[in-house]
């Protein structure tokens, strides 16, 4: 057993057992954490995998969230089935957006995705869609109850706890699918494009296909995260999905380490918990405290959690050998 495998088993055990000892509010926060981890992972596939930058993830997140909300509220669909639908719709949306994005790179792509993120809340507010989206007010969803069989087995599971485990299972499934994707032929093609597009093209990689595919997959996963987010918060409104969300996801990716999927968990923890910590240190200067914490982190570990993990792994294996 390698150090990395032991570490991931410990992390998994912690994720499974910690909520059993926590109050509902903290379980809810952990659910949020998992959901953002999925969204950060999605951005990681796009930026870390295929080298395309996106500030528009909040738009895909919003589409996923509204898909779930509309299906549950207007069509009475069970919440479980909204996830794959949100994923597919966002995949198509992302794939289509990836087509014009093919001609853009770097700063220009950042601006195009930024435009998408800015436009999305305004589009959701449009009078034209108000019947479905609820306009500025948004939609209130009924929080799902834990399934009956748990109760008949004599287990007392709260709504929050059930949602946490539900999210955890989805997150793990997405995580394994994503690591396999990046290790596959398609994943290697994407990474070749990231490292050198022209060389990848010369080696016979279909650059346009894999770049748009990366956009689609990333958007699809973000959509699933958005749907989960809508279910967990039990509410969707246009102003929850502004550019700030996209910026937060971007920060999460950088803090976790670009291209290192397990880092998404650390990055998501940063964006969920650090603003609260900053607020508790100083109310008036919470923005400054947040900025200073961020700067300290990028100064100490410019490669984020990835760097921490690698250093730790080195240290541990050295101690192992010397003993």
């Amino acid at each position: 057993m390698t150090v990395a495998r032991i570490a991931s088993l410990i992390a998994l055990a912690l994720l499974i057992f910690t909520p059993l000892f926590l109050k509902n509010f903290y379980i809810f926060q952990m659910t949020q954490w998992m959901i953002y981890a999925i969204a950060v992972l999605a951005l990681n596939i796009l930026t870390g995998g295929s080298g395309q930058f996106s500030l528009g993830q909040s738009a895909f997140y919003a589409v996923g969230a509204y898909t779930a909300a509309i299906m549950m509220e207007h069509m009475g669909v069970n919440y479980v089935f909204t996830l794959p639908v949100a994923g597919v719709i966002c995949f198509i949306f992302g794939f289509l957006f990836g087509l014009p994005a093919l001609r853009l790179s770097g700063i220009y792509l950042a601006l195009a995705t930024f435009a998408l993120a800015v436009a999305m809340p305004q589009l959701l507010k449009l009078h034209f869609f108000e019947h479905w989206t609820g306009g500025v007010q948004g939609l209130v969803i009924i929080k799902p109850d834990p399934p009956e069989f748990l109760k008949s087995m004599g287990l007392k599971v709260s709504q929050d706890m059930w949602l946490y485990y539900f999210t955890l299972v989805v997150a793990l499934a997405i995580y394994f699918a994503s690591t396999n994707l990046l290790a596959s032929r398609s994943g290697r093609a994407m990474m070749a494009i990231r490292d050198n597009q022209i060389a990848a093209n010369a080696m016979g990689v279909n650059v346009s296909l894999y770049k748009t595919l990366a956009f689609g997959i990333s958007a699809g996963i973000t959509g699933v995260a958005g749907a989960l987010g809508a279910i967990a918060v039990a509410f969707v409104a246009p102003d929850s999905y502004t550019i700030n969300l996209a910026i937060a996801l971007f920060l999460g990716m950088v803090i976790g380490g670009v291209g290192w999927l397990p880092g998404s968990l650390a990055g998501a923890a940063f964006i969920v918990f650090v603003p609260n910590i900053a607020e508790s240190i100083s109310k008036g200067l919470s923005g400054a405290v947040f900025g200073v914490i961020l700067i300290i982190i990028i100064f100490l570990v410019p490669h984020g959690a990835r760097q921490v993990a690698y250093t730790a792994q080195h240290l541990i294996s050295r101690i192992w050998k010397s003993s």
Partner: protein
Amino acid sequence: MELFVNQVLAGISTGAIYACMALAVVMIYQAIDHLNFAQGEMAMFSTFIAFQLMQWGVPYWWTFPLTLIISFAGGVAIERALFKPLGNAPVLVHVAGFIALFAIINSVAGLTWDWTIKQFPTPFGNAPFLGSQLISTHQAGMIGITFLLLVLLFIFFRFTRVGLAMRAAAALPESAKLVGINVSWMIALGWGMASGIGAIAGILIAPVVFLEPNMMGGVLVYGFASAVLGGLSSPFGAVMGGFLVGVFENLVGTYIPGVGNELKLPIALALIVTVLVLKPGGLFGRVAQQRV
């Protein structure tokens, strides 16, 4: 027809704001090859410094150069303290640094000068310009100063040794080092100049949008958009981009029914993206070719 002309004029006067900011954006892009997301906040902070100096009784025409000097020094200091140590980190980490800077400056300004809206004086007055109700003398002065800055920047980048060295340092840092350019200080200088131009932009914009810590949020977005539309490699393009965005935004608001203030920005951005898809280097810029 009269409505059209009026809307174009009104667009040009808002465009002047964007053009000013776009110049600062291009300046930093020439120096460090990225966009600085904290640029708007830096300009806002400079404007507050000018405001504070005036509160202390310094006359306007003394405040102006003083603010410029302070902003220049501030820009250089930020580069030395924050971004030089990050030199070897990946680009995305730098972007995270810009975001951190944004949060810090915004929050500190809010605490120091509170979040209320403040009036900011203009040296040009607010009378109608040449009898037109749509452009005030202040806005005309702003357009004039923007063009003056543009000419100065053009001369600086084209004909002075420092300007050329700066372009070289941004374009090919390794080769620039080999020919004896101090790349590290060129970058610091670029930060200082961008901060100075930002200060000018802030001082010119503040009488129109009023002074408050969030005054630059919207302006910076339009500034980025204008700079990208015109071409990030070209100061002239950036200024033209600013006017184009201003005019277009106004015409969209007037002629397309159902477009309120809310949808102006998305539509303007959509147009810019369309332009970029057709012409990836911007209207006046050149596409950078990459070596394999």
